[in-house]
């Protein structure tokens, strides 16, 4: 009995640093945010308790739902190129030869650039009057008049931003996929070759199933990242035209720190967190099923 209690205490002590970390940096801020969401608080004045009024306002706020739907659309559009593109590049570069290592490095470099910096870079590249993209298309004779890529047409703005983010992020998935593909024992793929499987048959029947956990992980990370998209839209379109490219986090930011409606911003954040949690639960269920 004594030994059992002692071993439990030791176990708890081992866990304590992690529990403390999660408590201080996750649980406490989360609870605090919930408390803030129940108040009207302009930051420079004292908070006033208003119960669930902020949540009622959020459900009636048309712009919040427009932003949320846009964020979901953006997530839906950007996830396939990131996952499929990253996987295809990983298949092409998984083998360790100098040229493939070099290619992997080149594809991965944008990942280590800050998102704000890359967004500014692409803002300049897409500039209507001075951008490199228009210049090239002009010189190739593909366009006669400058195209306004950002902030004028919602779809064109979204696709332009997707191009910039795919360039920036695709290397992240690729490097994880490369790791997963390289971890497959060579005997397995060699056995498939001996059985006469073509390259694509090996990819479909052997490589893809054995790397499915990594595919799901990268998909989950990518979806969460896209649902939290902010920097690229803040810098490249600022939500224009007519707020049609304003993401949920951008809207939360505006309410919390520009309009100084901190309580309302906290309520919007919590609603967004619940939606992301739902995605995560579905994703984890899928992961478990693939493991079974």
């Amino acid at each position, binding site marked *: 009995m004594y030994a059992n209690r002692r071993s439990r205490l030791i176990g708890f002590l081992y866990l304590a640093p992690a529990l403390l970390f999660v408590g201080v940096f996750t649980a406490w801020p989360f609870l605090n945010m919930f408390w803030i969401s129940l108040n009207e608080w302009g930051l*420079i*004045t*004292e908070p006033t308790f208003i119960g669930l009024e902020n949540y009622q306002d959020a459900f009636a706020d048309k*712009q919040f739902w427009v932003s949320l739907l846009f964020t979901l659309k953006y997530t839906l559009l950007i996830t396939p190129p990131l996952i499929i593109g990253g996987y295809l590049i990983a298949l092409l570069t998984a083998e360790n030869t100098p040229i493939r290592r070099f290619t992997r490095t080149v594809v991965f470099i944008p990942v280590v650039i800050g998102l704000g910096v890359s967004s*500014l870079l692409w*803002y*300049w590249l897409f*500039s*209507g*009057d*001075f951008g490199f993209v228009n210049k090239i298309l002009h010189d190739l004779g593909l366009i006669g008049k*400058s195209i*306004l*890529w*950002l*902030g*004028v047409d919602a779809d064109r703005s979204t696709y332009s931003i997707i191009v910039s983010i795919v360039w920036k992020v695709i290397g992240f998935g690729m490097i994880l996929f490369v790791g997963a593909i390289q971890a497959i024992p060579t005997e397995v793929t060699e056995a498939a070759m001996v059985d006469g499987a073509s390259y694509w048959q090996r990819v479909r029947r052997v490589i893809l199933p054995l790397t499915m956990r990594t595919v799901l992980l990268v998909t989950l990370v990518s979806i969460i990242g896209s649902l939290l998209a902010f920097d690229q839209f803040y*810098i*490249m*379109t*600022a*939500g*224009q*035209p*007519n*707020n049609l490219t*304003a993401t949920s986090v951008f*809207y939360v930011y*505006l309410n919390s720190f*520009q*309009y100084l409606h901190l309580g309302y911003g906290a309520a919007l954040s919590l609603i967004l967190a619940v939606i992301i949690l739902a995605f995560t639960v579905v994703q984890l269920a899928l992961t478990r099923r693939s493991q079974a």
Partner: protein
Amino acid sequence: MWASGAKIEAAGPGDEPLTGDGVKQVLQFARDMVKAGNVPEGAQAENGETFHLQFGTGNLGMMGTGNFNITLARDQMKGHEFEFGISLLPGVEDGKSASFIGGDLVVIPKGSKRVEDAVQFMKFLLSDEVQVESYAKLLNLTTRSDMTDNKYFQAEPLVQDVAKALEVGKTPYTTTFFEQINSPQGPWLQMLQRAYYKDDDLETIIADAKKAMKDIAAKG
């Protein structure tokens, strides 16, 4: 619009924004400029990052900006053939002008526990020495209009032109300034975009913006 006698923002709940004929007159003037091709196309999607590049096209140009760009332009265009001057924002009638003054505010929040300390700090900021040796020395506009006649401004004639703004300049007075005016999602920008790039009736555009601004001011 200020220079044409218009009022822009709703100061608080119940206050009427966008009043005066100047609002419609200026929107019509700007719309005509856009339609005539006198505004660069990229201006529609400009976030402030590249608008100064228009001067690099080699044409005569005009842009609304702050006095901080004087030193920037002088530094960056050193050795280039580049001339520039400064004018206050004109109204629709000859001889009328206005300017925006502000951006950085020093305020004492309601309920502050250290009002006296804050007042002392404000007095320090407004003292002769700080106005001249901190603000004017860096060619920033002095807060006090009686401090514009100083050695640093005298050495830079363009700043003297800017200093005239202190006499006609206005500062929007509302606690919801960002939401009403500065926000990319706010009614002011939406009104300008609609007026410049759509063919909607200007009266309708102004009425919509007015309602949105009043709603924001009412919420506080």
